[in-house]
């Protein structure tokens, strides 16, 4: 056992109080310091925090950014989501491979650079993009990728890859990133500036019950996509038995095509933190956790500073705003590359230092959440709405938007449009108007709500963005007339297979089977009976899967079968000779041909 590894691991574990529930921080630190979490390191961690080694392995093997085998000093993770592909990530990938002399999943012989793919990193409006360790590089091209590798070879410092900073706080000393906000339209709720503490002071002048009443009167619903009434969630949490309560902020924005939380975190961290603090007051909690996706690690120091500043101003910490006995503080919990952790119970598992498996419900987090204590989990944007409701009043908020969906929604728009970026729009806006805003009048299809949402055809562009029609956590992906929608569907399915936690059968196996049949159709071997097969399989997954990921994972197939059925029908055919077209006789005889060294005389 190497002495230095032992010392490193011991030190890391000790810094985390040898606390098993801090496993995410421990394994992330070990990975960062030692290049991987090796078997030896797992043994050591298990010893230090008094758990079984296989429990550590269970966590490490779950998260995409953690590894049991050594990686290069620099890891390049090229985003391979569908929008990046549309914007030319294939050329970037080819350039990276040639320049590095390795394939994806490999490390250069000198152990310097590892090349990987990663799903959506929240940069679709500036695609193709990649992560180089924690740095984000955007607007890539083949040439840019080549020169990036050359300069990396010289200095091995990802920070030096950032040439010109992006707009707004992307140029802040603690961010220094080339990421752009691309705020195309600000609204009055989320992206407007807030006088520091204004909402919080109003809240503290009321009783917690009154704060909850205001949030209910505003009819605020969760902005992550599911749309659960926030006030009700808070009330359940407040009324649940227990002494310790938690406020969790879901900043694990992983739905492909969504990047609005990244912009809110960059430009309006105070509005978010204030909202969390108000939640703490309302539900009776002294501890908040901001769960930040690993892809946004470049924002971490900046956010830490925002928290620190508020502590100094008495807006966080003890006796907040002079209110005796109201103590509340927030810590940042980093994720490690797992879409499923955006599901609230998975997020809780992750904060507890476990695999990001969703939990069985009931009990719901409001009753038994983090460490079995009453917990409210809300989206970044939801907390921002809370701040504004407390600043301007529930009536002001409720008169915006549509009847069932008051307020505004921040959309992340990308794909085949002239003005990709972030738009704060009132709920109830027609999709056609959204498309006009972003310059996508010739759209042939729009995916609203990310892969788990709905593929909308031009005939339905009159539909509206709201909870009762097209619900979305913010993702709007536009596809022009030249795009092959079934290939988009394939991409989405591959994403769900990659990101499934594997806990329940329908999601773990069903999506693999959906993809198998879709590939058959795309290969020209599909039969008309494959369409009802896909529908039934999709329905089984939708009904029987355990969590939101599984229940929505067949949506790409199901919604396109409904709105774009002709795209499937044009590819499937009844076999004229009565043989199943899905059966490839050539492939089946392949091995025999090799062994006998001759062609089949029959086929």
């Amino acid at each position, binding site marked *: 056992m190497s002495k230095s590894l032992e010392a490193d691991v011991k030190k890391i574990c000790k810094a985390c109080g040898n606390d098993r529930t801090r496993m995410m921080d421990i394994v992330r630190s070990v990975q960062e310091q030692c290049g991987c979490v090796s078997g030896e390191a797992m043994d050591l961690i298990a010893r230090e925090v008094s758990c079984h080694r296989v429990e550590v392995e*269970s966590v490490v093997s779950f998260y995409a950014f953690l590894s049991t085998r050594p990686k290069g000093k620099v890891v390049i993770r090229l985003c391979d989501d569908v929008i990046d592909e549309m914007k030319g990530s294939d050329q970037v990938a080819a350039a990276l491979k040639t320049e590095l002399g390795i394939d994806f999943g490999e490390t250069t012989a000198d152990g310097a650079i590892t090349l990987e793919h990663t799903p959506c990193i929240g940069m679709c409006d500036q695609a193709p993009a990649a992560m180089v360790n924690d740095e984000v590089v955007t607007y890539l091209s083949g040439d840019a990728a080549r020169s990036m590798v050359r300069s990396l070879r010289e200095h091995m410092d990802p920070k030096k890859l950032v040439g010109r900073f992006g707009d707004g706080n992307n140029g802040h000393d603690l961010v220094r990133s080339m990421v752009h906000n691309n705020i195309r339209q600000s609204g009055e709720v989320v992206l407007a500036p807030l006088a520091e503490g204004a909402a919080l002071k109003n809240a503290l002048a009321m009783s917690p019950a009154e704060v909850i009443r205001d949030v209910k009167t505003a009819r605020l619903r969760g902005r992550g996509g599911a749309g659960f009434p926030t006030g009700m969630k808070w009330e359940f949490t407040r009324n649940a038995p227990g002494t310790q309560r938690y406020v969790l902020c879901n900043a694990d924005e992983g739905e492909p095509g969504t990047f609005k939380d990244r912009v809110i975190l960059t430009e309006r961290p105070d509005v978010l933190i204030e909202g969390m603090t108000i939640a703490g007051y309302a539900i009776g909690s002294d501890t908040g956790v901001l769960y930040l996706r690993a892809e946004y690690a470049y924002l971490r120091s900046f956010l830490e500073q925002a928290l620190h500043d508020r502590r100094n101003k008495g807006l966080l910490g003890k006796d907040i705003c002079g209110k005796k006995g109201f103590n509340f503080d927030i810590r940042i919990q980093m994720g490690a590359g797992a879409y499923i952790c955006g599901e609230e119970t998975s997020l809780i598992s992750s904060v507890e230092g476990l695999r990001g498996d969703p939990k069985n419900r*009931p009990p719901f987090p409001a009753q038994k959440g983090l460490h079995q204590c009453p917990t409210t989990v809300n989206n970044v944007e939801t907390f921002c709405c809370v701040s504004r409701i407390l600043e301007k009043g529930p009536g002001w908020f409720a008169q915006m938007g549509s009847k069932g969906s008051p307020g505004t929604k921040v959309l992340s728009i990308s794909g085949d449009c002239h003005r990709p970026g972030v738009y704060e729009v009132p709920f109830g806006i027609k999709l056609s108007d959204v498309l006009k805003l972003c310059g996508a009048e010739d759209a042939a299809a729009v995916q609203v709500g990310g892969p788990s949402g709905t593929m909308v055809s031009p005939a339905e562009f009159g539909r509206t963005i709201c909870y009762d029609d097209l619900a979305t956590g913010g993702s709007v992906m536009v596809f022009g007339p030249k795009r092959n929608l079934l290939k988009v569907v394939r991409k989405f399915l591959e994403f769900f*297979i990659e990101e499934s936690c*594997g806990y*329940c059968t329908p999601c773990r*196996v069903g999506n693999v089977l959906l993809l198998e049949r879709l590939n058959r159709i795309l290969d020209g071997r599909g039969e008309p009976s494959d369409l009802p097969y896909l529908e039934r399989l999709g329905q089984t997954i939708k009904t029987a899967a355990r969590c939101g990921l599984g229940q929505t994972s067949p949506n790409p197939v199901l919604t396109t079968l409904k709105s774009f059925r002709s795209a499937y029908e044009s590819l499937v055919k009844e076999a004229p000779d009565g043989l199943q077209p899905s059966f490839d006789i050539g492939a089946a005889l392949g091995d025999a041909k090799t062994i006998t060294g001759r062609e089949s005389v029959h086929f």
Partner: protein
Amino acid sequence: MSETITFTIDGKEVSAQPGQTIMQAADAAGIYIPRLCAFEGLVPHGSCRVCTVMVNGRAQAACTQPVADGIVVENDTEKLLAIRRDIIEMLFVEGNHYCMFCEKSGNCELQALAYRFGIAAPKYPYLFPKREIDATHPDIFIDRNRCVLCGRCVRASRDVDGKGVFEFVGRGPQKRVAVNAEANLADTDLKTSDKAVEVCPVGAILRKRVGYAVPVGRRRYDHKPIGSDIEQAASKK
């Protein structure tokens, strides 16, 4: 005295105690809800989804869903039977199940479920995964080809044996059961007397040298379908 809860399963009135799951109440009432990952005495897992029922029109796992007064549970409906059949077939194609020479044949719950559902061959294509076998332990072996990821061994070892020999690693289709050692089962403290060895519903964890001690024809499900014990216990009452 705690109050009694009443609700219906397929129209039949069932009574239950607060805190019971729908599955527990159904068992007591002699109504069989098919299941695979559930095992009496272990914490419910809710992973296989074979026990999916409709509760007031919403799909729920009967093994984890608590009873509540007045709920309307559907169990034996065409729709649910179709879903369960799909799930069982998924489990067959996901692994490599060689019933014809598996020593668990006749005692295997997955096989027994397939018989009960009348599944002769799955409608899905076999995925033929490459899975690891671990025969390092002197008395026990693991054949992951037959593993259905039900987590019984994980729960039994952790909660009953107090050992934590097994745990899930990886995610999605790569998810598998790992052992608490660098690689080999031989390096764990697993004993043949452990609950974890006994609870495997399929032939993934087996004791060595006892494989065919009970001949085919005299095995658990050779004459009566799985679930009939639950149904019969009620009819005797």
